[in-house]
């Protein structure tokens, strides 16, 4: 069968079950777009290429599938870098196709040429420059396999123009086999036995779960483990939703803006079980003071995560779902005794922390941002898919929206990438057409990628944007308030657009609330709309996110007001 590179690409994409591609056309990918049009794959035209990757990221997280992007060479390719870096930090399976100048021009500084494989080497799981059309099908298959196996991550495939137009005699590629890539899914039995023993001995255990649990779809197993061992549970930002936030064992989020009880319990516990986490600095605070009284279990599929930041008593390399299922089975054979009785003191201690230092705010004359998030939670009954931008909006979303299910909280965790929420919401809405998708945003970060309102309107995607508008780059302003004597350098956004008019200009719906009593009505009206909506909530200007662990402090040393 004679096929061009572009035709081969479409064939393999369909075999991989791709139904949506986020992209932006350009000179060297015209042929690919031309073939794309002939398939039933839905192409979503974003308005800037980083958003193609953010949208694919949101699509992958909400739908539990690989997200796919297609952009042109040069600036199209360089624009994707921020999106790729965010997906890489959060281990999200995305395949990015970039066009490249024809092979005979590579290295010539040709028009719109850039060495995108070189640029993205440190922020992709792997990347390829396809030099011959004959290699294209195999490489695309490998890219999908790599992106979505082991610890997932973005994989970039750079396709020169001549590779996509050359016609060859197509032979289907063989099954993907990479001699140098064999992720460890099954845990070591002896290590697992060690974990069982540590659980048996523990008096004050805490489970600390992360994004790895969501990626390996192990929420059920995690919940079973927590209940079986009566271990209170906290998660990282990336792990929100892995465990029901309405469960009595829930401690709230850990880390820099974690709850008082979650952070205090890591300082007090005698066993900390890290599952699908990487103990990053926003979680641990000052590393030498982290969980000093605890033996540490660390379960993760990526061996490099283990002992990278903290010493571990029982390291277990394995897939979270498989490992937790096995661990639960082993625990079934154990007599753990009357755990409720055994843990009574521990639970009392945690309850005391909760009672004395709950998450709290006081709603007076001006709208509090926390109030908006809490109302949003109530009105959506906790069922919405929430994406966020980055900063205070992200932390209030994490603190005041209670996530009971995985894949419902989508945020740029590791990279902390402003402008992520709106394109991610677009991706999530495409993956879950019937879901209510809400981007919780700040007035700063929404302006980083506000142009994607056009994408939402064009595609008829009813995404909702909730702007917590405080007229500042709030999180940096908070640091300036607390640590720089209120010198608000370059954080005041005096000249913001009228977001209501802006929404209307895009053909979306714009709503505003300036008083607390308007919040509920605006949310109700906005959420009920079948169109994309921007809801502008004019909130308290100098509200801070608490608790806060200052840089360099232990997680147990929190600022509380």
């Amino acid at each position: 069968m004679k096929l061009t590179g572009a035709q081969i690409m479409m064939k393999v994409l369909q075999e991989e079950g791709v139904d949506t591609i986020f992209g932006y056309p350009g000179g060297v990918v015209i042929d690919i777009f031309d073939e794309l049009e002939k398939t039933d794959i839905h192409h979503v035209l974003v308005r800037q290429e980083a958003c193609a990757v953010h949208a694919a990221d949101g699509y992958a997280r909400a739908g539990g599938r690989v997200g796919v992007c297609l952009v042109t060479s040069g600036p199209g390719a360089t624009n994707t870098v921020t999106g790729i870096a965010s997906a890489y930090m959060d281990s999200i399976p995305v395949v990015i196709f970039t066009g490249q100048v024809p092979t005979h021009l590579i290295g010539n500084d040709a028009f719109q040429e850039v060495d995108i494989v070189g640029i993205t080497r440190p922020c992709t799981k792997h990347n390829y420059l396809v030099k011959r059309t004959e290699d294209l099908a195999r490489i695309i298959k490998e890219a999908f396999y790599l992106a979505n196996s082991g610890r997932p991550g973005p994989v970039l495939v750079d396709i020169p123009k001549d590779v996509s137009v050359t016609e060859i005699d197509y032979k289907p590629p063989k099954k993907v086999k990479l001699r140098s890539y064999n992720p460890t899914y099954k845990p070591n039995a002896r290590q697992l036995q060690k974990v069982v023993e540590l659980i048996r001995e523990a008096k004050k255990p805490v489970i600390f779960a992360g994004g790895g649990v969501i990626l390996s779809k192990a929420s059920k197993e995690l919940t079973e483990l927590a209940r079986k061992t009566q271990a209170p549970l906290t998660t990282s930002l990336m792990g929100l939703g892995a465990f029901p936030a309405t469960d009595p064992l829930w401690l709230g989020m850990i880390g820099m803006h974690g709850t008082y009880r979650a952070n205090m319990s890591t300082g007090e516990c005698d066993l900390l079980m890290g599952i699908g986490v990487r103990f990053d600095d926003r979680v641990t605070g000052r590393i030498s003071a982290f969980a000093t009284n605890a033996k540490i279990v660390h379960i993760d599929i990526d061996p490099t995560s283990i002992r990278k930041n903290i010493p571990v008593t029982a390291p277990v390399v394995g897939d979270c779902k498989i490992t937790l299922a096995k661990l639960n089975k082993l625990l079934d054979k154990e007599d753990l005794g009357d755990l409720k009785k055994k843990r009574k003191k521990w639970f009392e201690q945690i309850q005391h922390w909760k009672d004395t230092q709950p998450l709290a705010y006081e709603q007076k004359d001006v709208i509090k941002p926390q109030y908006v998030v809490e109302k949003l939670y109530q009105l959506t009954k906790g069922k919405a898919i929430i994406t966020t931008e980055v900063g205070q909006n992200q932390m209030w979303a994490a603190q005041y929206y209670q996530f009971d299910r995985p894949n419902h909280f989508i945020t740029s965790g590791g990279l902390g990438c402003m402008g992520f929420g709106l394109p991610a919401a677009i991706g999530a809405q495409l993956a879950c057409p019937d879901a209510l998708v809400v981007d919780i945003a700040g007035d700063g970060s929404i302006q980083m990628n506000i142009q994607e309102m056009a994408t939402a309107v064009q595609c008829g995607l009813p995404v909702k944007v909730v702007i917590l508008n405080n007229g500042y780059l709030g999180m940096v302003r908070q640091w300036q308030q607390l640590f720089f004597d209120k010198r608000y350098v370059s954080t005041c956004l005096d000249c913001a657009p009228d977001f209501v008019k802006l929404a209307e200009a895009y053909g979306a719906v714009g709503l505003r609330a300036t008083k607390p009593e308007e919040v509920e009505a605006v949310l109700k009206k906005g959420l009920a709309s079948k169109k994309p909506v921007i809801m502008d909530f004019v909130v308290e200007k100098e509200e801070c996110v608490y608790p806060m662990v200052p840089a360099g402090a232990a997680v147990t040393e929190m600022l509380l007001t």
Partner: protein
Amino acid sequence: MEEKHILSILVDNEPGVLSRIAGLFSGRGFNIESLCVAETTDPGVSRITLVTVGAPPIIEQIEKQLNKLINVIKVHELTGKKFVQRELALIKIIAKPENRAEILRIVDIFRCKVVDIGPEHYTVEVTGDEGKMRAILNIFKPIGIKEIARTGIIALFRDPN
């Protein structure tokens, strides 16, 4: 405690692989003291011999990070095990008439070879392990080393038998 470690890394013989490895070291702040790459008997596989310095947790992290690269087939740490190591150096020595005999005597003692002669220099080829390299450089230094090119260490496990 910081120590020198020799890593023997088998990789796919593909363009860009060296850059992935070098990028990993620079991006994560690891050291490369020397690095040597060449094809093995399998033309699809290259062996990289890399000398690095670091405390044990850092070396563990380096090994894991290397293994994580898709093009890395196998990583062996040689330090602490039985292995042979060699390095080759070309040393251009200032050879004044009064020194020429002395240089040749040293060449003889160290079992090196003179591979190039000029009116004012000898170029000497030396092969050996780190200790020999250090020794011969110390001896030649007072005589006057004009230029030097070293390969960095290559190493292999000794056969278990």
